[in-house]
Structure formats: structure tokens, C-alpha cells
């Protein structure tokens, strides 16, 4: 790849939240806030670029849910695996995949993390053990279990972390995967991003038991829930989850109760929920809440906030420039990677 991409990747790596340990000081406060703001602005920019038709296909944004990715993913080690859904830009960013390569992916440029072949719903990055990007609801569960099984069989003590929406628990793959993860004692953390709606379907209209953590009883998986709008609460819950899994080598289930501020995708009139409900939840905006608290505790200042906003604007701006300057994969390459090919001279 070009030199400019390399420097960008390194620069951005440093900007991802520091090692999580469940405690908070000035530096971590800045890190957490910066990451959440980066996600928020990246998503807003993506929406804008979608209306300009720079980004195509389906686009699912994470606004409102930032505290979940940011409170959890920094707890993973570099070797740990991550499996996400089609609403996964935030997870990719937090995992340290460069904003530029994610944006380039959504532009369909070959500098994108999936070479421009996957788009928004299929971000992948082997380097960071980021295994998607899965656009089939529930499709990630067994993959995550398989990744964990792979680690165990190869004597590695990594954890696999699997994100999904509450709507996905209706799929058979959820239940099959939970059973085997537990039966085979695999080191997995399942993180349910319960944002109350699967497209237009409220949980109560699709599930006989709406307390999701109760379902895990039947699989003998330890489960907990956390306020997904509170990044420190998520951070703390994840600290426990990781400790449990590393110690007992068994799966753990964490439900983060959150809300998506925007529509399901870019085609959704949102007639299934009241504007008032959305406004109520926006009062619990994870960025606003966190900043207020940190300010009160003297860990973040107005000046920090402005500085971070400038840094984040810069990252997003550079990401867009990177995507704009990206190149199209030549059409002669269309047939590449359908099957394995001899090692490249990379």
C-alpha cells in the first residue's frame, strides 16, 4: 500500500482508547470521550455522504449506542477475536481499524479494509482479528463460537467477543450457538446491543420472554445486563466479563440496554416509535452524560472537549480525503479471491 496509508494507520492507532481497566483518570476520560465522538462524527459524516451517493447500498448507523463498543472493545487484547453485525463501523473504529480504510471501504475503493468488495455491512480486517461485518442476522454467532473453538484447539488463550442486536436472538443460530459455547466451555463474550427495536419490531412483539438474560439460564451461561448509555458502567461490566472468561474459560453474556437515535437504515420512516420516545432517550446521550460527569469530577474540561472535537474532525476529514483519493480495484481483478491463489509477493 501507499506510504500515506501506513502513516495514517499508525497515527490513528494511537488515538484509540487506552488499555481498559475499569478505572478512570484524565487520560482515559479523554480517550473514551474521543472514541465516542469519533464514532458519532464518523456516522454523521457517513449519513451525509450517503445522501451524496458516495456511499451506497445499505447503511446502518450506531448513533446513541457508542458507549457499548467503546466500553467493551478496549478490554480485548490484540489477539482476541471480534465478530460484529452490519451495524459495525463503531466496532471497527474502536478496534483500531483506520477511519480511512473504513471510509474507503464504504466508497468501494480498493484501499478499503475489505478491498472495496464488502461495503458498510461487510468490514473485515484480519490484522486486528476483526471477523466482520456480517449482514445476515444471526450469522455471526456460530462463527464466533468456531473462532473460540479454534483458539482452544490450538492452545491459545484468546477470547472471542460477539456483538449482535436483540432481534437476532430469534434466530435458531443464537440458540444452537449458546448451547455449544456453554457445553464445550468456550471463552466467548456475547454482547447483546439491545436497542429495543429490530427494524420496526419492538422486542415485546417478537419474544415471549423479553428479559434476554433469562434465556441464558437454560444454557447455563452467566449473564448480566448493563446501562448501555453509560460508558463507565459498560466498562465496569466488561471488566468483570473479561475476568470471568479468562479465569473460568466459559462463555459470558452481557446485555447492554441502549437505543439507536437514527433510523434502522437510510430507508426507514420510523413510524413504529414516537418522536417523544426518541427525544427522551436523547437526554441520555452517552457522550453528553459522560462529559457532564467527567467535568464534574474534574477529569474533562471545556478545553479538552474543544481540543478533542478538533482532533476528531481532523480524523474524519482525513478519512474522507483518503477515501476520495482511493482507487478502484481494476475490473480484471473481479475474479480474484473466489478461490485461494498462490501467495502474493507482499
Amino acid at each position: 500500500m501507499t506510504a500515506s496509508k501506513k502513516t495514517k494507520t499508525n497515527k490513528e492507532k494511537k488515538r484509540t482508547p487506552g488499555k481498559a481497566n475499569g478505572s478512570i483518570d484524565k487520560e482515559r476520560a479523554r480517550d473514551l470521550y474521543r472514541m465516542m465522538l469519533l464514532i458519532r462524527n464518523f456516522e454523521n459524516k457517513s449519513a451525509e455522504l450517503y445522501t451524496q451517493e458516495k456511499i451506497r447500498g445499505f447503511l446502518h448507523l450506531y448513533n446513541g449506542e457508542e458507549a457499548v463498543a467503546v466500553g467493551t472493545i478496549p478490554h480485548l487484547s490484540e489477539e482476541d477475536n471480534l465478530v460484529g453485525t452490519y451495524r459495525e463501523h463503531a466496532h471497527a473504529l474502536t478496534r483500531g481499524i483506520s477511519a480511512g480504510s473504513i471510509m474507503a471501504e464504504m466508497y468501494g475503493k480498493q484501499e478499503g479494509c475489505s478491498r472495496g468488495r464488502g461495503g458498510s455491512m461487510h468490514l473485515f480486517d484480519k490484522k486486528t482479528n476483526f471477523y466482520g461485518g456480517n449482514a445476515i442476522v444471526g450469522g455471526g454467532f456460530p462463527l464466533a463460537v468456531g473462532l473460540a473453538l479454534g483458539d482452544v484447539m490450538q492452545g491459545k488463550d484468546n477470547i472471542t467477543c460477539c456483538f449482535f442486536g436483540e432481534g437476532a436472538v430469534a434466530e435458531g443460530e443464537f440458540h444452537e450457538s449458546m448451547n455449544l459455547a456453554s457445553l464445550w466451555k468456550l471463552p466467548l463474550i456475547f454482547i447483546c446491543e439491545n436497542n429495543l427495536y429490530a427494524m420496526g419490531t419492538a422486542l415485546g412483539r417478537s419474544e415471549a420472554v423479553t428479559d434476554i438474560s433469562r434465556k441464558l439460564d437454560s444454557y447455563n451461561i452467566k449473564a448480566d445486563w448493563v446501562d448501555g448509555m453509560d460508558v463507565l458502567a459498560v466498562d465496569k461490566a466488561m471488566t468483570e466479563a473479561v475476568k470471568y472468561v479468562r479465569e473460568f474459560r466459559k462463555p459470558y453474556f452481557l446485555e447492554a440496554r441502549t437505543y439507536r437515535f437514527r433510523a434502522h437504515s437510510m430507508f426507514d420512516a420510523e413510524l413504529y416509535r414516537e418522536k417523544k420516545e426518541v427525544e427522551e432517550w436523547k437526554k441520555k446521550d452517552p457522550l453528553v452524560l459522560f462529559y457532564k460527569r467527567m467535568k464534574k469530577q474534574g477529569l474533562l474540561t471545556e478545553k479538552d472537549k474543544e481540543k478533542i472535537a478538533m482532533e476528531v474532525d481532523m480524523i474524519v476529514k482525513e478519512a474522507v480525503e483518503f477515501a476520495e483519493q482511493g482507487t478502484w480495484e481494476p475490473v480484471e481483478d473481479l475474479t480474484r479471491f473466489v478461490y485461494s491463489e498462490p501467495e502474493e509477493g507482499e
Partner: protein
Amino acid sequence: MAELEFRNAINQAIDEEMSQDENIFLMGEEVAEYNGAYKVTKGLLDKYGSKRVIDTPISELGFAGIGVGASMNGLRPIVEFMTFNFALLATDQIMNNAAKIRYMTGGQISMPIVFRGPNASAGQLSATHSVAYDAMYAQFPGLKVIYTSEPDDAKGLLKSAIRDDDPVLFMESEQMYGLKGEVSEEEDYTIPIGKAKVKREGSDVTVIAHGKMFHVAKQAARQLAKDGVEVELIDPRTVKPLDMETIAKSIKKTNRCVVVDEQHPFSGFASEVGYLIHRDVFDWLDAPVVRVTLPDVPAPYSKKLLDEWLPSPDQVIDAVNTVTYRK
């Protein structure tokens, strides 16, 4: 005739049938309160109530099988998939149960059920969301497969599908839902399953194309006409059972044939049709049949690659030039 959008033609077909037969019910993700992910089922919940227009969780395997069970018990379910890409999760119930139970039980059990939803690619959605599955289902004895290209066909054939006592896969396209066309206002308008339609008459070459590809072929035919090549354009409409009679009749006239198909080449619709043409009208052919299909490659997201991947009018024109020895 009335001008209708594709989605409204489908809606009318379901509505008319539901109003005539209480055993018909509709089930799928977001079909009721949301009025359908693509607004195909708009208004049906209000009209028929939640007993007959049912929102399901994201449980494709489950609700497809529940449809099969209800069908065995005398109901006539219409099961909507948000797309046939998600119906992959339901294939056990469709292929093992819906397709086989009548046969396996020596004809004791009837299976009137329709599985419907959009098929094939719909823009830059990448590999998991862009597959045409009509030939895959057509592989299975016991299933009927319809994939229409215009609102009139959709209305007439969907009504027939709902009345049929066998499982029917009825396919649409996200990209065609807004397409307008003249639809018959004849009362109780139906089109028989298994009948192709000659949609453009011509003497130089027969082009066979269904679903979204019909429109690609139509564009090519228009262009070719400017060069003095008259295409006879056949829309099979039903993939299975396939109307070979109409195809054979046309080839006996034109002696040349191109098949356009938005599926991968191996074991696809085009390969089957190519074989059947050999079997039935070999002696009338002046050139080998040429097919235009997807490459043997999953759908890419990148616009550049996707444009290359999808069959285009230019490829159809090339194929026509090949079979007419114009190049």
C-alpha cells in the same frame, strides 16, 4: 388496463385473493405494522387484521416451517421473505418439507403455500445480499418457481400461485417494486403458471430473459433494432414448469437463441434452457445457443466491479452478434 407500480400489482393480487378465501394468511418479517420492508403489503393489516397478517420475529427457518405446517392443515399461507437471500436460512423447510411431503406421503397431503419476496441483486449490497435463487429452487421436484418482470405478469401469476395446491416460490425485485406498467383490470385476472409470453416479435434471433434481466434484454433489443436486427423477446415468467413450447416455436422461426440470466453460470437457468433447446430444436439451430450470465464470482460491492459483474445490454448485443455471425 390501469397503470400500477409493481408493488401495487402484488398487493392487489394478495388483497383480491385474501378477500375471496379466508384460509389465506400472510406472514413474514415487518409485513404487518411496518407495511412491508418495501411497502408491498401496505394496508393489508388494516383490512384483514392481525390474525391474517402476521409479523414474525427474525426466524426464517421457523416461520417458513410454520407455514408448511399450516398448509398441511388446510390453510393457504403466503410467506414473505424480506429477500430470498435471507430465505437461505429456511431452505430445509422449503426443500425438505414443502417440496417433498406430498410425494413422500403418497399424495395424502396437499401443500398450498406461496413463498415470496425479492430475488437477485439490488444495487451495491455485496455478496450476501445479491443472489438470484430461482434456478436453485427449480432444481427441486415438487416446487414451482415464478420470477416475473412486469406488474401485469406479477398480478396474474401471483393470483394463480396463491390458488395453486403446490408450493410456489414467487420472486420479485427490490429494484422493480417502483416500476410502473399496465395491468389488466379484468375481474379475477389470472395468468396460468407455466406459460411464457412473447413480449416482442422478431425474426432474427430469440432472446430469452426473465425477472430483472428481461429489462436488460429489452434495452438490447431496442438498440439492435436500430441496426436492423429484430429480436424476438420471450419472458418465460415461470421458471418451473418451463414453457418449452413457446421457446421452441420461436427458435423454429429465428434459428438462433440467446439466454440472459442473472445467475451464476454453473447449473443455472441458462444452462438448463440451453440443454432443452438442444434436445428439442437442435435441427433448427443455425448457431450454438449463447448465454449471458453472471460470472462465477460472488457480487462485489464496488460500483466498478459490480457493473462488470452484472449482465448488461452490451453483453446481450454481443451475444446476439455472435449467434447471428455479425462479428
